[in-house]
């Protein structure tokens, strides 16, 4: 894991999996991201917290190209997200190349977004069979294993509307994992859930973290950040206010804004 930094002298001792540099995002006149810098090492669980409207979702959506950035650059491994660089000039990627980049990045949404006309099993099999052209049998076997992993083997043939919110979210996680991504993005995966269902989803995420998955998690679950997070980033007003070891920041925030936010959510 510890390869020496060749491309980025002066940074940490490993090549980061995700490198976000000076990213800005405008929605029309609205300046939502104001120069974000962030790196995520392979296998790292990076937790992002921050008040509503601070740009957390926007940042995640930029990483897998649901939004295009206005300035800066995002790199996942060697791939520049959304563009290719030819002779120092950026060119938009073709839709095909964009789709290829997205395959490496799994995303879990606040509102699950399962396909309601497909069973849990079919939801998980959809991308492997349609995008990776896996055979039905291979995809089914893999999907059933994933369902078992998220504790829902019995629910394979249920439609999303027959599942509880927590179950739907776990299927959604399994669906993203089926593409074998090297990076998983979670946008407030538990905030649409009843409190008693949150634990099941967090447990699945903990197991995933233990298995070595690189994860960027936007959440209000400070407990999760403390227990599972390798780094904690506090965002406010489109900038990174503070970043570092979650346990240290939670115990002893350096900035007034972090302190104030934590006092509200803890």
């Amino acid at each position: 894991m510890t390869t020496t930094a060749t491309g980025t002298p002066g940074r940490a001792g490993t090549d980061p999996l995700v490198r976000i540099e000076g990213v800005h995002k405008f929605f029309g006149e609205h300046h939502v991201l104001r120069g974000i810098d962030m790196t995520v090492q392979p296998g790292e669980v990076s937790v992002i917290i921050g008040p509503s409207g601070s740009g957390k979702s926007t940042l995640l959506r930029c990483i897998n190209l649901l939004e295009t950035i206005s300035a800066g650059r995002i790199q996942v491994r060697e791939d520049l997200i959304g563009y290719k660089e030819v002779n120092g000039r950026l060119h938009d990627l073709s839709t095909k190349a964009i789709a290829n980049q997205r395959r490496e990045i799994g995303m879990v949404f606040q509102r699950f977004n399962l396909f309601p006309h497909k069973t849990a099993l079919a939801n998980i099999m959809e991308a492997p069979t349609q995008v990776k052209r896996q055979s039905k049998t291979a995809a089914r076997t893999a999907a059933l294993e994933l369902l078992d992993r998220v504790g829902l083997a019995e629910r394979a043939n249920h439609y999303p509307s027959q599942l509880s919110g927590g179950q739907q979210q776990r299927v959604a996680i399994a669906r993203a994992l089926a593409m074998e991504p090297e990076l998983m993005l979670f946008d407030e995966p538990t905030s649409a859930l009843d409190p008693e269902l949150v634990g099941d989803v967090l447990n699945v995420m903990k197991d995933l973290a233990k298995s070595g998955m690189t994860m960027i998690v936007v959440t209000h679950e400070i407990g999760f950040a403390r227990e599972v997070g390798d780094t904690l980033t506090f965002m406010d007003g489109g900038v990174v206010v503070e970043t570092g070891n979650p346990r240290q920041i939670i115990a002893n925030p350096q900035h007034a804004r972090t302190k104030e936010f934590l006092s509200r959510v803890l």
Partner: protein
Amino acid sequence: MSQTAKRGSFAGPDDGVERINAVPVRHPGRWVGAAIIVLVLAITAQSLITNPRFHWDLVGTYLLDTLVVQGIGWTLILTVSSMVIAIALAIMLAFMRQSENPLFRYVSWVWVWFFRGTPVYTQLVFWGLVATLYPKIIIGVPFGPEWFSMDTQTVVNATVAAILGLGLNESAYLAEIFRAGLKSVDNGQMEAAEALGMRRSKIMWRIILPQAMRVIVPPTGNETIGMLKTTSLVLAVPFTYDLTFVTNTIANRIYQPIPLLIVAAFWYLLVTSVLMVGQFYIERHFGKGVDNLTKAPVKPAAVAAAVAHAHNPAAPADPEPAAPTSEGGTTP
């Protein structure tokens, strides 16, 4: 109503729970309404039977007349083929309208604007005249060599003209229905599929359209039934074998319009009823997973197999407890 109250005391299973047995609200208005309806029906029935000018004997004679039956056949052919063309075009137009390519969006918009903006009757007359306008169809390079040519009349005969006229016109209306259907699908579906790396055309076909069908099918059924009767306009082409034209011709020949109107109405109603049954099944198909969940689409055998399989490779995990919501509220 003391009977009901008494009956209630021993209704239901023997579980010692005394079921509520409220006296239902009375609806005297309904009885009055029913009485009026029965009266009106009786009067109508009496007039239908006793008025000799209905000529029920002629209705019987012509109901299964060869020309009439062929007329139904032609009407069905026109309806089905023009709807097939219209649906294929409408899907294409609706996709084009949502495309990222501005040229596609523009073409789709203009198509709808034109075919919806001109009367179907005019369009049918036009297609009937196409052979006069362009006597020959020539394939080749403009102002250059000709590779192939043929008489328009042989390609665009009355049947083709009628189907094209009806189908192209209908495609514009259906395109709007399909567009509304596609728009009704939550944006999160597109994003989730995109995040999985699916290409846009695939997302449309496999994710968005199947969900949109729930919204699309009812108005499309409506349009199909409408089309069944719009086919009677094909005399504008002129196309002269459809049910309306044929029954009209017979009526004029025997100077008896009423019985033949009844014959035509009977057949249109019958076909409409069959179409409505078809629509019911199509709606049920696309409602899968969203509507009619009480019909339990879960096959117990398949679940058992899935569980067995999933637990095969790994160590057998504890089975998932039944629906977690079922034990809500009973905190010890």
